[in-house]
């Protein structure tokens, strides 16, 4: 029994930790050439952290932060309402919002693109209504695409959070005359903050490395961390693995930074370290 956890731990070490270490090692290599003398330095990082790449990193982080926040804000009122419905209705509503997840991610992005391409149905409708906005091949398009692509992912975990919330406290507060805002600010948010943070990270991190959306909706025109990393490995330019590895580590660092700042803002306590487990899928 004592060793039952071993296989899984070894597996994860081999295929998550080892790749990570290997990438770290690779990123210290000076040139992409395989047979060049192996000089070790921080050249790749210097390149990654200077323009234009530093701007791309900054933009990607900012866009993903905003998009992830919006995703949560959009889904929050709904899941809250659903969690307070009678049991029977709940499942129906939840299913309704999660069914789009059944569609493959590639397909969902493609479907979105088809409607919003310059000759797409919705673009034309928007134009008729007087909105002349480019929702493809633009930063805005990628932003909205990110929200659309990741929104269906948060309904379930958010719902679980609210589902487990202790209702009596809220009811007590309501009885004592606390209004909606007060109830949220003093009771609901503090109670659920870890779960919310986990949900946020659950969408923020993949958004940060997103490649498909900027590629298809952005037309390869909007440079993001994801597209830059991809192009170092399988892109149209010459492969440059060390630089790609350095960019990936920058991505991880950015994600870790956001995580640390986020949790410290929430006054994260050591005893609550298991925050990641509060994500219930």
């Amino acid at each position: 029994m004592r060793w039952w956890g071993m296989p899984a731990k070894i597996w994860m070490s081999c295929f998550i930790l080892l790749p990570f270490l290997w990438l770290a090692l690779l990123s210290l290599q000076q040139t992409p050439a395989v047979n060049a003398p192996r000089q070790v330095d921080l050249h790749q990082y210097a390149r990654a952290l200077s323009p234009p790449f530093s701007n791309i990193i900054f933009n990607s982080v900012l866009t993903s932060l905003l998009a992830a926040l919006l995703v949560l804000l959009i889904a929050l009122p709904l899941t809250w309402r659903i969690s307070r419905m009678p049991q029977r209705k709940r499942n129906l509503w939840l299913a309704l919002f999660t069914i789009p997840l059944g569609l493959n991610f590639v397909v969902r992005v493609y479907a979105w693109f088809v409607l919003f391409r310059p000759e797409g149905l919705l673009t034309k409708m928007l134009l008729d209504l007087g909105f002349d906005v480019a929702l493809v091949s633009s930063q805005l398009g990628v932003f909205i695409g990110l929200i659309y692509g990741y929104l269906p992912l948060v309904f379930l975990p958010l719902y679980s959070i609210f589902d487990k919330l202790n209702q009596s406290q809220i009811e007590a507060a309501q009885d004592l005359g606390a209004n909606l805002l007060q109830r949220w600010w003093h009771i609901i948010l503090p109670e659920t903050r870890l779960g919310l943070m986990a949900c946020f990270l659950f969408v923020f991190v993949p958004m940060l490395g997103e490649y498909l959306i900027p590629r298809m909706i952005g037309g390869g025109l909007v440079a993001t961390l994801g597209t830059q990393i991809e192009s170092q490995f399988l892109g149209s330019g010459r492969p440059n693995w060390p630089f790609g590895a350095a960019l990936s580590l920058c991505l991880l660092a950015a994600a870790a930074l956001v995580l640390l700042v986020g949790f410290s803002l929430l006054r994260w306590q050591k005893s609550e370290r298991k925050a990641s487990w509060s994500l219930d899928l």
Partner: protein
Amino acid sequence: MRNVKILGAFVAAAVVGGVGLFALKNKSSGQRTLHLYTWTDYIDKQVLAEFERKHNVRVIEETFPSNEVMISKLKAGGAGFDVIVPSDYMIATMKQDNLLLKLPREKIPNLTHLSERFKNVSYDAGGEYVVPYMWGTTGIAYNSKKVENPPKSWKEFFETTRAQTAEKRISLLDDPREVIGAALKANGLSLNSTQTEELSKAKMTLLTFKPFVSRFDTMSYKDLLASDDLWMAQAYSGDIVKMQAQNPELRYVIPEDGATLWVDNLAIPVSARNPELAAEFINFVMAPEINQRIALSIHYGTTNEKAREMLPASELNNAAIYPPKDVEARLELFTDLGNAVEAVDNVWAEIRASDAVPAEPPSAQRQ
């Protein structure tokens, strides 16, 4: 609890079924398999089916959108592809890196059908490693309904015509050599320039042009041209001829200031699992009748003299596919740039990564 059991049973059935299928697949794998790695949409599917039937083999076709992607995959992967289709300028590097097998010429009797000019190509003297397969050009495609004064040259494409399409309706290929090559041509320079000064001129052209670009795309640009989403594009000749069936308004021009001529070649990588079958396949597609069918289906120029003679006049007279002699004189082949390719790569990375357009060219270039 009941539905739990039912679902559990279903999952179990799916898993068992999957594993069973796997076993079945392995059992039937006595059949030889040919892994073909080629450009997107570059062979007649019926020809592949015929090869499968005649030689009792299975053909697995995998496609790539650019030479660079092909090389990356070839280097990242182990053994596997039996026939690959690299372009002219890639061959020298591939030979250098020992990626290509010498052709077993005696097993490919149909090589005799090659036209004279392709029997001894500059990038592979004596035809030791590759068989020229199809050729074509990279030029400008536009929608004649949407673009009033279509560009006649790369210079016009980059500098004047863009004003007509104030909306972003232009795409460039997702291919460093092609895009930078076109910009070099617009500046009256060679496709193969590696001089820093000339490259930075091309870079400026592209950076000022970038706000008008809607996509860097080699895969779906032709569909978007046909659906009127794009009005103008840097395009491969055959793609446009093909798409004219969907949208008759599409036109293809070979720019006056020059364009890329490219020749794609059949080759056997060193890592091929099945080199004999690969030779059989190459021989098969070089048979005049088969080759003619492929050329007619993909609308590129064939390198096969006999096959060309069998083509209908409508195909041969299409200037987009077989340009007249005077136009052909303007075409240029890419050459292998050796280590200087890094300079081109850097320009490409900068163009792809740049968001802002520099207000004015750096002062160093003005002097």
